[in-house]
């Protein structure tokens, strides 16, 4: 199936780009650990486990933003959207390939962040990991679309957080609820978010990236 082949070619390209540049992933790793460190100082003594979990989610969202801001910079600065858009591949494949790559970076950052959180604050259960996985899907699908939009404008580093954070509210609600063990319906809600916004992002990406 050529769609899958296009997506894999594009995702491979994005992963390769990051492996060479070694900019985004190290920054995300350092950022997430530094943020967790600051949170230690920000939380007063004797703060409950749930408050700390909430801050974990804040750290994850902002770390994701860091990665997403860089997502389409190469394409924008080198004018590569023109070249990609002229190929026969479906425009949504550009989005999907990029989202997969960002997902990989985010997971890599979380592989460090979650153990760090366990060491700094409190243990992380299976529910949290599941919630993080589901949240990552939502963050990457929506964030990649918004990243492509932000990079077309002037103040891209400023714009992406503004565009993304309101859409991240349901993710944080679902994530914190699930991690705090408030019930499986939070996980279900995250899955619903992923489905709705995933399909929407997939469907509209072509309008964002083509000037036609």
């Amino acid at each position, binding site marked *: 199936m050529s769609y899958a082949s296009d997506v894999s*070619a594009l995702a491979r390209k994005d992963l390769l*780009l990051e492996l060479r540049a070694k900019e985004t992933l190290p920054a995300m790793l350092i950022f997430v650990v530094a943020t967790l460190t600051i949170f230690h100082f920000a939380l007063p003594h004797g703060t409950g486990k749930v408050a700390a979990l909430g801050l974990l989610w804040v750290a994850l969202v902002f770390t994701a933003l860091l990665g997403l801001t860089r997502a389409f910079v*190469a394409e924008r600065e*080198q004018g*590569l959207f023109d070249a990609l858009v*002229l190929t026969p591949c479906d425009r949504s494949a550009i989005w999907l390939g990029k989202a997969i790559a960002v997902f990989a970076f985010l997971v890599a950052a979380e592989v460090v962040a979650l153990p760090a959180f366990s060491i700094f604050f409190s243990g992380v259960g299976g529910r949290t990991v599941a919630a993080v996985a589901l949240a990552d899907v939502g963050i990457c699908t929506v964030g990649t679309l918004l990243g492509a939009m932000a990079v077309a404008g002037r103040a891209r580093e400023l714009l992406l957080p503004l565009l993304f954070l309101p859409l991240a509210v349901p993710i944080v609600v679902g994530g914190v609820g699930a991690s705090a063990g408030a019930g499986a319906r939070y996980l279900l809600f995250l899955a619903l978010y992923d489905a709705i916004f995933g399909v929407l992002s997939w469907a509209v990406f072509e309008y964002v990236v083509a000037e036609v």
Partner: protein
Amino acid sequence: MIAVRGLAKRYGDRRVLRNLDLEVEDGGFLLVTGPNGSGKTTLLRILAGLVAPSAGEVRLPPRATIGYLGHAPLVYRELSALENLNLFGRLYRIDERAERIGMLLERFGLWEVRHDRVATFSRGMQQRLGLCRVLLHEPKLLVLDEPANALDAAGLELLQEVLADAMQTFVVATHEPQHVESLATARLALA
């Protein structure tokens, strides 16, 4: 191959092109000249199918038969020459990709450096790689914006070989028309 009637393009309130008519027949060569800011790049992007006009009609061949080289060579700086061409080769679904890529790299003198990152190339070499990319899928229409940019004498010779192909249709914008004058079958001077 290309037919344009009453083309106009504006961005917000800025009029960039107004009331253009032109036609390019198969195998033709349209030379577009004009000073900076006259709208050459915008026109070429419209003729490459990247931008829709604000008014007028544009008839173009199918997207996959068009090759576009912009001001920048449109290649990933952090990938190698080979990786770049492999990517576009896959996206264009080229059969016998490896052979075609090898042939192009040889032709444009980039075979030795095929594994090097494009960022290490000189601007002229990047332009040559851009030309490889644009020819990769054997397009019927080539839309080239300042293709002679940064090319040395050897590069210019290679470019002229490419442009001399009578089977392909060309739209070339340049502010130094002397290299390609003789090949043009039609000229358009933008004010």
